[in-house]
């Protein structure tokens, strides 16, 4: 057993032990460890890929959501515009109608006023005529004796006549 001369016994045992170690470790340790490491690496890789994909999808989804929102907004604006137009139209119509009604009422009021006025004038004329006749009747009744007294009397009568 020199320092640099290999010993037979050790050579035998080392070969045996090392072969056994390679075999046992290979079968029971390295094989499962390496396959599990690989599996874990692939699973991590896949998980990362899936995460990226999900991110992309989220982006897509967000984009389409925004689009949807924009469309909804546009639609709302359109509806609002329509409503506003209809409202304005209704208001206009109502206003026109009201104006027409009002002018119609005014017209008829004017007409009736005219009629009343004409009636009143006719009645007044009749009244004046009647009063004049009565007055004349009294004047005639008193005989035309004294012109002064007659004149006084006319005045007196005139005072009595009241245009009511």
């Amino acid at each position, binding site marked *: *057993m020199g*320092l640099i001369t290999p010993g037979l016994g050790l050579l035998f045992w080392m070969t045996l*032990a090392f072969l056994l170690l390679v075999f046992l470790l290979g079968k029971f340790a390295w094989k499962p460890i390496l396959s599990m490491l690989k599996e874990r690496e692939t699973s991590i890789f896949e998980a990362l890929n899936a995460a990226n994909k999900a991110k992309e999808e989220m982006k897509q989804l967000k984009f389409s959501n925004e689009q949807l929102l924009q469309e909804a907004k546009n639609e709302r604006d359109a509806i609002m515009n329509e409503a506003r137009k209809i409202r304005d139209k209704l208001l206009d119509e109502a206003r026109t109608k009201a104006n027409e009604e009002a002018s119609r009422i005014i017209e008829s009021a004017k007409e009736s006023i005219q009629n009343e006025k004409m009636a009143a004038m006719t009645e007044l004329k009749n009244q004046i005529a009647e009063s004049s006749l009565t007055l004349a009747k009294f004047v005639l009744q008193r005989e035309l004796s004294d012109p002064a007294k007659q004149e006084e009397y006319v005045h007196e009568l005139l005072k009595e006549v009241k245009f009511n």
Partner: protein
Amino acid sequence: MNIKRYFSFSLPVALLFSLFTFFNPSDGFAAMQDNTSLVAAPDTTVEQLVTELKKEDKKFNAGEMIIEHVMDNHEWHIAVIGDVQLIVPLPVILWYEGKLYTFLSSKFHNENHSYQGFKIELEGPHAQKIVREDNEKAKVYDFSITKVVLAILMSSALILFIFITIANRYKSNPNQAPKGIQALLEPLIIFIRDDVAKSSIGEKRYEKFMPYLLTVFFFIFFNNLFGLIPFFPGGANVTGNITVTLVMAAFTFVLTTINGNKHYWVDIINTPGVPWWLKLPIPLMPIVEIIGIITKPFVLMVRLFANITAGHIIVLGFVSLIFIFGAISTSLGLGVSVVSVAFMLFMNLLELLVAFIQAYVFTLLSALYFGLAVIEPEHH
């Protein structure tokens, strides 16, 4: 022989030594002056130390101690506590003349260091070699469970336990974040897979070599780390043993050779881009290339062995310094111990780095060789 056991405790021993002498200078100094050899263990008191030192009359030999430590042994010394030596006897298995002999290494603890006609050499260049008493030249095949074998078996068991536990955790909660020891070792596994195997062999063909590369990496890394632990389950110089590195380099060589495709062999036999007269009539380039096939695993073997053994030797050298200087003068030994401990701490930290780097380099180079063997020619 006795000295070897102190090595495993290099750091604590040195610390304790300086502590003892600091609190009880007279005893400590006396011990140092009386005797030049080092006999200590973490639990020894000064009195025990002194008696032990007095028994020991061998001179302290740093070189012998270091070489004994970095080499294999038939028994595993743990500590010396007073008169009691804590030694784990290891099974000796011998094949001699068609017969199998098995007994514990503690049977050699007698005057002749012999048992059943076998003798164990305790010193010299063939220390720990078991020979026949009657005929030292006779072939004795030694399949003993030595210190390094036991260390390999223990670390292999631990590696198996750890990684099967981790594998079960992967199975029980799939696709979850790793936890505990799983989280500690997962980066290393992924590092070997992505930065060593995938980049050296290629995305398509690396999977076949993964079990071998991971096993080699963790076997070297764990054993390098155990080698740095100065106590019993650790402390063995496994990856700094030439036989161990030889076996691993041989595996890399065999795997490279059997996986070599047509392109790989054509590159070796008929190297492209080389003038024809280098191939004919004397096949100079093919010879160089074939030598290259052999040198690759050879370099793998030597690099790991040399790096780890050198690390152990340097740390042990610093321990020895304390006792070499202590033998000259106690106060000098004390002074040197402070420096030595500081350097040992530095070296141990450096060795932690080396433990990883050497495991990485061995795995990376193996992966590169596999990559060369399986690469498909590029079509331009």
